[in-house]
C-alpha cells in the first residue's frame, strides 16, 4: 500500500504539472481574480487617502460619505464609496460597476498608526483580507487563497482618482509582523499600519 504522505506528494506534483501547462480553466480564472482583487484594494486605499489632506483627519472627513469611481488596471471599473463603519471607523466599499453584491470589497479602520484596522475584500465566495477584531488578533493576509503575501506590492494608475497611492504589505520572518504602508506618488509614506504577530 502506498504511504499516505507519498500519495499526497504525487497528488501535489500532478497538480503542479497541470498548473505548469495552465490548462485548468479554474486556475486561469483564479489568477485573474488575484489581479482584480489587488487592483480593488489599491483603488480603495488610493481613494481613502486622496480625499483627505491630512491622514489623521480622514475619519472625520469621510464620515459624511463620498463616492468615487475608478478603473482597475485589469480594465474593470469600480465604484468606491466611503461609509461610516463602527463608531470611530471609516469604511471604504468598493463595488463592481455592474453592482453585483458578491463582487465588492472594503476597508474599515481607524486611520491612525498603531490602531487596529479591519480589512476585507470578497471576490465571489473568497474572503480575501481580514485584520483585527476588538478581542482578537488575526493574521492579515492578501490573496484570495489566504496565502500570506510576504511582499505584495500593488500599484494601479489607470483611471484612478487624482492622487494615486500604492499599497505595500511587507513582512518580516514569515509574515509577522505585517506592515501596511501607503505611499504617495513620490514614494513618501503617508500612512503606515503595523500588525502584531498573530496569537492563537
Amino acid at each position: 500500500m502506498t504511504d499516505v504522505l507519498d500519495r499526497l506528494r504525487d497528488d501535489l506534483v500532478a497538480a503542479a504539472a497541470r498548473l505548469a501547462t495552465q490548462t485548468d480553466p479554474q486556475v486561469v480564472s483564479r489568477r485573474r481574480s488575484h489581479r482584480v482583487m489587488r487592483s480593488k484594494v489599491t483603488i480603495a486605499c488610493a481613494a481613502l487617502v486622496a480625499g483627505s489632506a491630512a491622514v489623521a483627519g480622514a475619519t472625520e472627513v469621510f464620515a459624511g460619505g463620498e463616492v468615487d469611481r475608478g478603473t482597475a488596471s485589469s480594465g474593470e471599473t469600480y465604484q468606491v464609496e466611503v461609509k461610516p463603519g463602527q463608531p470611530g471607523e471609516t469604511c471604504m466599499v468598493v463595488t463592481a460597476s455592474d453592482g453585483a453584491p458578491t463582487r465588492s470589497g472594503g476597508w474599515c479602520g481607524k486611520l491612525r498608526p498603531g490602531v487596529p484596522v479591519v480589512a476585507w475584500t470578497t471576490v465571489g465566495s473568497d474572503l480575501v483580507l481580514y485584520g483585527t477584531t476588538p478581542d482578537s488578533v488575526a493574521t492579515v493576509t492578501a490573496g484570495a487563497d489566504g496565502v500570506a503575501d510576504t511582499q505584495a506590492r500593488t500599484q494601479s494608475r489607470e483611471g484612478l482618482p487624482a492622487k494615486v497611492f500604492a499599497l505595500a504589505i511587507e513582512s518580516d520572518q514569515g509574515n509577522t509582523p505585517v506592515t501596511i504602508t501607503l505611499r504617495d506618488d513620490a514614494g513618501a509614506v503617508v500612512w503606515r499600519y503595523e500588525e502584531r504577530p498573530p496569537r492563537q
Partner: protein
Amino acid sequence: VQALHSLTDEQLLERGLDDPQAIGVFYTRHVGAVIAFFRPRVNDAETALDLTAETFARALQGVARYQSSGAPGRAWLFAIARNLLTDSYRRGRVANDARRRLAMSRMTVDDHDLERIEEAATAASSGVSELVDSLPDDLREALNSRIVDETSYADLARSLGTSESLARKRVSRGIALLRSNFERRLAK
C-alpha cells in the same frame, strides 16, 4: 529528481511552476515539520493531514507570487500554515479552496495512514525538540517564548528583564544556533 535534492528551498520554489518535481522535493523536505506543526494544535491526525494538504496546495498556488518575494522558503510555507490554522479556527472547519481549484483529490485515510501521520509528526517534532533542548538556557527560553508561545518581543523583553533589542538578538541567535545544529545533524 536526484539533482533537485541539492537545491535550496528557494531554488526549488523558483522552479516550482516549470518543474513539478521541484514542488515534490520541497514537499518531501518539509511535510514532516508541517504535520508536526499542526498535529498538537488539532484534535486528530486526519485534520492535521487535511491542513497539511491544504497548506501545500496553497503554497503551490502562491508559487508565482513567492518568486518575486525573496522570502525564505520555509518561513513562507509556515506563514501559509499559520494563516490556514487561524482561518480554520475562525471558520470552524478546514478550508479546501486551494485543493478544489487545483483539482486535487480528497485524501481518504485508514488506520494505517493515521498511524503514519502520527509517526511523522512525532519524528519531526522529537528531533527538533532534542535540538531545542540542547540550546543554552537563555536562548532556549527566548526561542520557546517567541516561537512556541508567540509572545511579542515587547512582552518577551519584559519577562526576560531586558531590552526589546536584546530579546530580538537572543531569539535570532537561538534560531541561528538551532539551524546550524540541525544542518550538522542532517549532514551526518
